[in-house]
């Protein structure tokens, strides 16, 4: 954490080092003030977008043909399928999620290299829901001063009613959040109907309960404590950031020394150098984590930009230039102090590396997704017995073949075997018209497991093991897949 190097800031920070302080500080209640401005508008917009996607996405329909779920995004645990619009993934393709996690991490790093804790300030679910819960709190209990006053005074009927109203709305939002969550795991319209008629499975109600409780507690009560004590990202972020990253910064070169408007006017008239910060504390009043941004970059700052709005409103009123607090870094503060121009370097080695890593991972994922096989076969050799000698002296090996048909319709395939000379193939339970090329039907969107026997007349000097390859061919589409194993002679 780069600390600004002005005197008053340093002394303030040092005070926190008093060794008699307990290890665990009790939560200080924070009363963020209503604010309007550019960043507040951005936050409202992103909140609407994030919550809109979260609440409404399960309701989006996507036609996959008869018999297949028509929900655009569905995690179907009983059938072990994940549906995302045109993509259908099987459990063994879970590695795509690894790719998504890598992508998410690099995107987070890139955001951090460009504009600091953009994730924390605008996109993190904790921030989004806490923001929403604060809006409800302001609406029912009034703004900062009203709430401070109410908390200090006695519990009147009016205040109790407002408080109950607040908790009720919080609970409804939390319940809706849990309700939307379970819709991702089951057909949404059916589940909504079942919930409405009290016929929903217990597991749905349990998860709604869990999500309701966690949303209510985290967004309603734990709030900034999650960011300060629970979340690992601020710690990692502090280690990942560099001096060029833009952060919400109090430009102390402009602001210090602080002075009230009137006194400042007088002192300026006398020719003294006075800063533009009028010490109105508006930046502190609006802060959702209750910090003072003028103490410099710090763990508690989620960089939501609300203090920028607060300060800009004040600067506008007193007729000074805006952005005394703004996206900036210490390099520019120093440059301005020594009379140089500001420099911004969004394109530098680390942002290029992050961006290219994101591009590479995206490209690899897209490539594997588009070229993935929709027909596959796996083979498992019998272990006991490994080989069987038949009465006429031929050797037979048994295999379990598992065929995967990832398409949404049944398909007919033929199975060929390449292996020992004159090898014959037989599939148990399949009487094929062409005995050497058994033909089987693979049910749509399913696996089919069959026992396959390969018999070969093996001479005295046969190899102990020979490679054997099973080739399957979709006779309609011409798709092929193969699996290899060994043919063992006892």
């Amino acid at each position, binding site marked *: 954490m780069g600390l600004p190097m002005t005197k008053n800031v340093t002394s303030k920070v040092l005070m926190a080092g008093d060794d008699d302080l307990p290890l665990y500080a009790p939560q200080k209640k924070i009363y963020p003030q209503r604010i309007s401005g550019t960043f507040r508008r951005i936050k409202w917009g992103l909140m609407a977008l994030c919550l809109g996607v979260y609440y409404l996405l399960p309701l989006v329909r996507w036609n996959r043909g008869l018999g297949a779920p028509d929900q655009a995004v569905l995690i179907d645990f009983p059938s072990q399928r994940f549906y995302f619009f045109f993509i259908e993934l099987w459990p063994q393709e879970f590695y795509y999620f690894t790719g998504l996690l890598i992508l998410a991490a690099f995107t987070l790093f890139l955001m951090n290299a460009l504009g600091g804790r953009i994730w924390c300030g605008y996109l993190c679910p904790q921030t989004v829901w806490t923001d929403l819960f604060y809006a409800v709190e302001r609406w029912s209990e009034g703004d900062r001063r009203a709430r401070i006053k109410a908390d200090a005074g006695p519990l009147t009927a009016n205040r109790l009613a407002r408080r109950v109203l607040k908790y009720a709305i919080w609970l409804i939002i939390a319940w809706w959040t849990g309700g939307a969550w379970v819709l991702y795991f089951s057909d949404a319209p059916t589940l909504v109907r079942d919930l409405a008629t009290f016929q929903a499975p217990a597991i749905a109600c349990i998860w709604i309960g869990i999500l309701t409780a966690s949303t209510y507690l985290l967004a309603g009560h734990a709030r900034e404590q999650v960011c300060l004590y629970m979340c690992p990202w601020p710690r990692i972020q502090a280690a990942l950031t560099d001096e060029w990253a833009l952060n919400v910064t109090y430009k102390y070169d402009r602001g210090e020394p602080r002075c009230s408007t009137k006194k400042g006017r007088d002192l300026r008239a006398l020719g003294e150098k006075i800063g533009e910060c009028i010490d109105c504390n508006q930046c502190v009043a609006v802060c959702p984590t209750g910090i003072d941004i003028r103490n410099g970059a710090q763990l508690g700052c989620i960089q939501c930009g609300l203090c920028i709005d607060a300060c800009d409103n004040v600067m506008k009123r007193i007729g000074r230039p805006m952005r005394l607090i703004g996206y900036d870094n210490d390099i520019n503060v120093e440059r301005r102090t020594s009379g140089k121009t500001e420099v911004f370097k969004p394109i530098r080695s680390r942002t290029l590396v992050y961006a290219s890593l994101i591009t590479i991972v995206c490209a690899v994922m897209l490539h594997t997704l588009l070229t993935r096989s929709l027909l596959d076969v796996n083979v498992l050799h019998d272990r006991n*017995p490994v080989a069987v000698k038949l*009465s006429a*002296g031929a050797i037979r090996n048994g295999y379990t073949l598992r065929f995967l048909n990832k398409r949404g319709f049944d398909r007919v395939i033929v199975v060929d075997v390449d292996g020992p000379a004159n090898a014959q193939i037989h599939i148990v339970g399949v009487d094929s018209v062409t005995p050497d090329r058994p033909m089987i039907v693979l049910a749509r969107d399913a696996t089919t497991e069959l026992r396959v026997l390969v018999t070969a007349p093996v001479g005295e000097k046969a190899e102990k093991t020979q490679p054997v390859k099973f080739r399957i061919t979709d006779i309609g589409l011409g798709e092929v897949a193969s699996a290899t194993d060994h043919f063992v002679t006892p």
Partner: protein
Amino acid sequence: MSQHDDTDRVSGRSTTGHEWDGIKELNTPLPRWWVLTFYATIVWAFGYWVVYPAWPLVSGYTAGVLHTTNRAAVTENLAQLEALRGEKMKALGTASLADIENDPALLALARARGKTVFGDNCAPCHGSGAAGAKGYPNLNDDDWLWGGTLDQIMQTIQFGARSGNAKAHEGQMLAFGRDGILKKDEIVTVANYVRSLSGLSTAAGYNPAAGKTIFAENCVSCHGEDGKGNQEFGAPNLTDQIWLYGSDESTLVETITKGRAGVMPAWSGRLDPVTTKALAVYVHSLGGGK
């Protein structure tokens, strides 16, 4: 009560009064809710004694007012299991053996059930993969003592061989040497003749004509003139590559001298008909079924 008046400066709480190199321990009694829960569990235990089996007596135990027993629970669970299998297993019971093999779903069900039952009942002799051992036939190959069709396998499982069951397969290899039917040198000669039937090498000085005569006089009634055996008596085919006890001369001499009469138990009393059917289909589908 402790006499010390030692209060921690930071937390404002009293300490235990103990001090180790300046480190003191806060006096933190168990929380009240914990203690109350603990007492509640003790009270709960008394109720448990009344309701459930609890105390051992000289020749029994206190049964408890609910009369709960594990055996009843098992019986109930088994009934539930049957109900759960329900329709599918019923289908297995009504379909013919051939129909089961022709229906992929029934075949898969029968093979799954058969594999489990095989592991529980048959594996001790035939091996977990049915590969057999000396004296215990390999069920994967295409050589069958008592026949390899679905019905024959089913019959063998139900009634066994030489099992004492009225419907069991009967017939045994006589002890030609021990009972004085053949002399030592005749046994060696016929053993070499039997080896020659499947193209195995014969000993030096062996007389093929004598071997053929001895075989014709003693063995053909069961094994047939060509030595291809007879499944009516469980007489093995002597011309193929598969030997239940072994094909070397000394083993053959031992077989002819002492006879063989391996026993397969009858399972009809222990396995229900549906399970037996599943088992027959499983064995048949191992690869050697006719």
